[in-house]
């Protein structure tokens, strides 16, 4: 669907261990069509810093009586996210969306081969988990089993891990959490936990979101073990709808794609990491 520029009404700001929180917004019926991996541009302040809107992938989505409710999982990293953390219920925020290509848009649907009943792996680094909850819901609804790999530096970086754990379990899979300081889950990095299973052919597809370093490593593993996959990228974004050309992502073809319009979801083997 075409994005619409509308207003979201703040329903709640739900605190998670700092520096994370969820922003819950009520909006129009059109938001019901938002797909996993798509994002919205939110005006965080009517002041001058930041001047431009901020991009947030849609973390969760539900219907309301007359419209839709979205949840954004946010990490406080600067003035824009700090401003959002201070929003009060009832405030109205300009929201443009849905924008971008969803998961499953770069390749044939992972369920297109009915004979392959292996599960898929969802891999998140920190707040990169944001778009993967909605993806998990859709996979569950389709009866696709998935394991959720969740890595962070420290325990707070695994925001909403219980929600991911119960969703994965409902699908028949499980949550594998790792932290670099050992404060939660396994001590280590998420790619180590994933590597043996990829080598053993446990998974038929990977969906990931997180820091570029993690995604690059996953792309290498995806190629090495011939397990295809997609990554949702995070880049600085000016407008979100393909006008400013600020969010270039270099492809293996040498072309600069736009993260906002051609992505944010790209096939692992399409990006020049």
């Amino acid at each position, binding site marked *: 669907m*075409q*994005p619409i*520029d509308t207003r979201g009404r703040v329903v709640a700001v739900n605190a998670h261990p700092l520096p994370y929180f969820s922003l819950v917004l009520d909006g129009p019926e059109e938001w019901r069509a938002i797909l996993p991996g798509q994002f919205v541009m939110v*005006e965080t302040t009517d002041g*001058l*810093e*930041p*001047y*431009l*809107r901020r991009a947030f992938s849609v973390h969760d989505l539900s219907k309301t009586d007359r419209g839709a409710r979205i949840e954004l999982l946010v990490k406080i990293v600067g003035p824009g996210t700090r401003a959002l953390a201070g929003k009060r219920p009832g405030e109205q925020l*300009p929201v*443009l969306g849905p924008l971008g290509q969803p998961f499953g848009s770069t390749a044939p649907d992972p369920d297109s081969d009915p004979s392959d009943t292996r599960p898929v792996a969802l891999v998140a680094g920190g707040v990169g988990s944001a778009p993967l909850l909605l993806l998990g819901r859709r996979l569950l609804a389709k009866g696709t089993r998935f394991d959720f790999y969740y890595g962070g530096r420290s325990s707070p970086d695994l925001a909403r891990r219980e929600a991911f754990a119960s969703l994965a379990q409902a699908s028949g899979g499980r949550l594998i959490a790792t932290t670099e300081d050992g404060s939660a889950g396994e001590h280590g990095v998420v790619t180590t936990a994933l590597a043996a299973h990829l080598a053993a052919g446990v998974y038929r597809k990977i969906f990931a979101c997180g820091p570029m370093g993690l995604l690059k490593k996953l792309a290498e593993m995806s190629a090495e073990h011939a397990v295809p996959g997609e990554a949702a990228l995070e*880049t*600085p*974004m*000016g*407008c979100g*709808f*393909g*006008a*400013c*050309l*600020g*969010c*270039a*992502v*270099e492809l293996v073809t*040498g*072309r*600069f794609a736009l993260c906002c319009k051609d992505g944010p979801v790209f096939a692992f083997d399409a990006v020049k990491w």
Partner: protein
Amino acid sequence: MVSSPAPVDPLRVPGSTAALRQPDLTVRLGPLQLPNPILTASGCFGYGLEFAHLAALDRLGGIVTKGLSLAPLKGNPPPRISEPRGGMLNSIGLQNIGIEKFLADVLPGLERFPAKVVVNLFGYEFDDYARLAERVDVFPGVAAVELNVSCPNVKKGGIEFGHDPILLERLVRSVRAVTTKPIAVKLSPNATSPVAIAEAAKAGGADILSAINTVLGMAIDPWTRRPRLHTTRGGLSGPAVKPIAVRIVYDIATKVGLPVIGIGGVESVDDVIEFLLAGASAVQVGTALFRNPRTAEQLVDGLAVRLTEMKVDRVSDLVGGVLLWEER
């Protein structure tokens, strides 16, 4: 007690017997006539059609395209943008689809709208500008050309012409020789004397001066020690540059004698009026469109309302209307 109040005419000024006229928003910039003085700035509105589902293209005075070159350009490596306080720092590198693709695929779609299409042209070599202008000259859907001689984000070409009055005069003359379309020259705020550059553009045959392009800037991430842009330097735009733009518009409008399009941090009706008073006949809206894609059309409406409040019949009456302080 009055049993039935007199019908209220919303267009009637209280206490006045005359129905209120809609203010005249049309402006003339030399040979270029526009339905209103609000245009979208090059590089901030794509090729126009990107905004078709987000903005009312038919309400704009004009659309200035993303800078177009003879061949498509790939652009600069990321990161390409950063956000200093009150603005945007960019180094896109003039990524564009090339003039041929624009003329074949985009221009026909834009011609459906009353907004005038101004094609922004950019070249690496001296001759590129005339070749581009000659190519678009036969297209009636192109209302004017704007020569980008001031982009700070490419290694060669472009900006050299915008900093050298002798070279620029020759360049504009070479374009003048091949086109009858109005020629606007987009000036750099980074030149030592924008007035001297503007004089050179006029001498070469330019009809209009567009001012300003982005202000050369730089930002560094204190944690990674990396420049926030891959190209180290970039162009600053947005509210942060507005006073620089107003000053340059004022200088060239008062000294050069060509119509001026003011550019730099325009996002409110106050901003538009400020540029008009400084001497601009029209304005271009840039970075604000990324924050709010409807900014330009909202300014058209807001300007009409404001002129009515100010009891100004024609927007052109405001041009150059700044009231300087008396010397004392």
